[in-house]
């Protein structure tokens, strides 16, 4: 299994109040899977995605990704693990506005030992793959929402990660752009065998996934 989540629970604390978000969740995702997590707001989808991506920690249970129990990693190990294994696609793209498309995609590669020439090659390949080879010098302000998300996808795949996590990747896009993004993610899954875990509210986006999971009040239903 690529992703094994076992008996994971998570609660947030606001002042002295404990708010349970995930309750004893267990899921298994094989390599090359395209999983869509669905559910109403506040159901814990994004929290589960964050736990799988290693940007949050469970209160209980274990999360094993490609043989590594990430719940046992310290902050420093976790940061390195994320850089090596996970590609992130966010709802609001989260590109750095002062950097060009090329520089944004290059960001994860700056943490590797690749030479400048090698980095350039990887970035150009990733931007070509998302169809933005001719927009490398453009800043996010000079791109449309759909193009920004494609740059974000290029940034997510440029390190050739094991898993791609996408949190509402079409949530901020019009219908046409959303369709383009979903086609791109589907292509990454089918052609490049990337394991994708996607959180979405959009049933049309979820149709592209192979498997659906529905979360409600912190439990799988």
């Amino acid at each position: 299994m690529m992703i094994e989540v076992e008996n994971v629970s998570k609660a947030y604390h606001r002042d002295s109040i404990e708010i349970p978000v995930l309750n004893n969740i267990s899921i298994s995702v094989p390599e090359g899977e395209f999983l869509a997590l669905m559910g109403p707001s506040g159901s814990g989808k994004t929290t589960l995605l964050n736990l799988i991506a290693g940007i949050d920690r469970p209160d209980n249970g274990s999360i094993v990704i490609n043989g590594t129990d990430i719940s046992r990693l310290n902050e420093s190990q976790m940061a390195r693990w994320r850089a090596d294994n996970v590609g992130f696609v966010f709802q609001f793209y989260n590109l750095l506005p002062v950097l060009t498309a090329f520089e944004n995609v290059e960001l994860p590669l700056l943490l590797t030992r690749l030479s400048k020439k090698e980095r350039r090659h990887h970035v150009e390949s990733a931007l070509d793959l998302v169809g933005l080879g001719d927009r490398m010098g453009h800043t996010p302000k000079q791109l449309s929402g759909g193009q920004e998300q494609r740059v974000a996808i290029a940034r997510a795949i440029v390190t050739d990660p094991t898993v791609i996590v996408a949190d509402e990747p079409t949530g901020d896009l019009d219908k046409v752009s959303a369709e383009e993004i979903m086609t791109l993610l589907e292509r990454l899954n089918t052609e490049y065998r990337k394991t994708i875990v996607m959180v979405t509210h959009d049933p049309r986006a979820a149709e592209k996934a192979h498997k659906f999971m529905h979360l409600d009040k912190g439990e799988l239903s």
Partner: protein
Amino acid sequence: MFVLRLVLKNALRHKLRTSLTILGIGIAVMSFGFIRTIVTAWSAGVEASAATRMITRHAVSFIFPLPLAYRDKIARIPGVDQVSYANWFGGNYKDPNDWKNFFPRLAVDDETYFDLYPEFLLSTEDVEAFKKERNACIIGAKLAREHGLKRGDLIPIDGDIYPGEWEFVVRGVYRGKDATVDETQMFFHWQYLDERVGQTQPMRVGNVGWYILNVKNPDEMARVAQEVDAFFLNSRAATKTETEKEFQQSFVSQSSAIISSLEIISIIIVGIILLVLANTIVMAARERTREHAVLKTLGFRPFHVIGLIGGESMLIAIVGGALGLALTFPVVGGFAESFPTFFPVVELQIMTILLAVAVAVFAGVAAALFPTIRTLRSRIADGLRAVA
């Protein structure tokens, strides 16, 4: 390299805000440097004091005279190498309400005074010309420059402590051995003063303002002071003998409230610099909460975040500090020109420059501290949800 590039791009993201912050820091650093320079100028006399010179004055106050007869008695105290004397003359030159016309006027013993002050550089010809003429005077080079005076010119003084119309002929111009020497003074013959006073106020004849003692060994100063003062303890004018530095310090301490106020203001300025910069950096870090979270998500480490926030703070602080220092030079120069004789030695010292740089660097580090800690402590998931 990436961090440096991003620091520069971030700093230029809000050009107006960054420019105003740099300008604010620049003005504050300039004010800091300027105030420190005034404080230094105030105590320039203390700094310029000689290690072997002592002053003997009236025990009650500097304004009471001492008999000339004390000279020989002081000279016989073991350890005293040379003795000279001087008198504060006062008086008004031209318009007394113009600061430029204020400069120290001293009646001195023409035979010994300049031997005790080797820092006043005088040509032999000037000294000879001065000694030959009863109402001759020697003036400092800066004073000569300010008033366009040259050898042979007359300086009319309207006497106050010593009433009457006085006229002195410039026969010599001295230069200071270095920048710390006051070049705004005027010296004339004590004998001339004594003779003129004798004509109208015979009771005031034979008095001097203070004695200047040159001791052979600075280690003996305490003993010499004790012996001189003990010698005159039961005389009609008891004395107080102290090192020249202490004597000068007593003048400065009369203005201690002003100096303390200036020092407090300079500390407040450091606080203002810090607040101006901290405000900008806190705002910038808050606006970039989500960007920092994204960088952490991608695997960037705490030192990258420290570099980004701290680097921007340091960049603004250093550019602002450099601007402030660049402004300080002309401001101090302009001030020195406006009060050439009131503050005879106005110099932007290396220590002041180093202090100003240190203040800017301190502000850069301190302003980044709180936003950096907050960013490092915040959870990535919270940062990703943040709205700029």
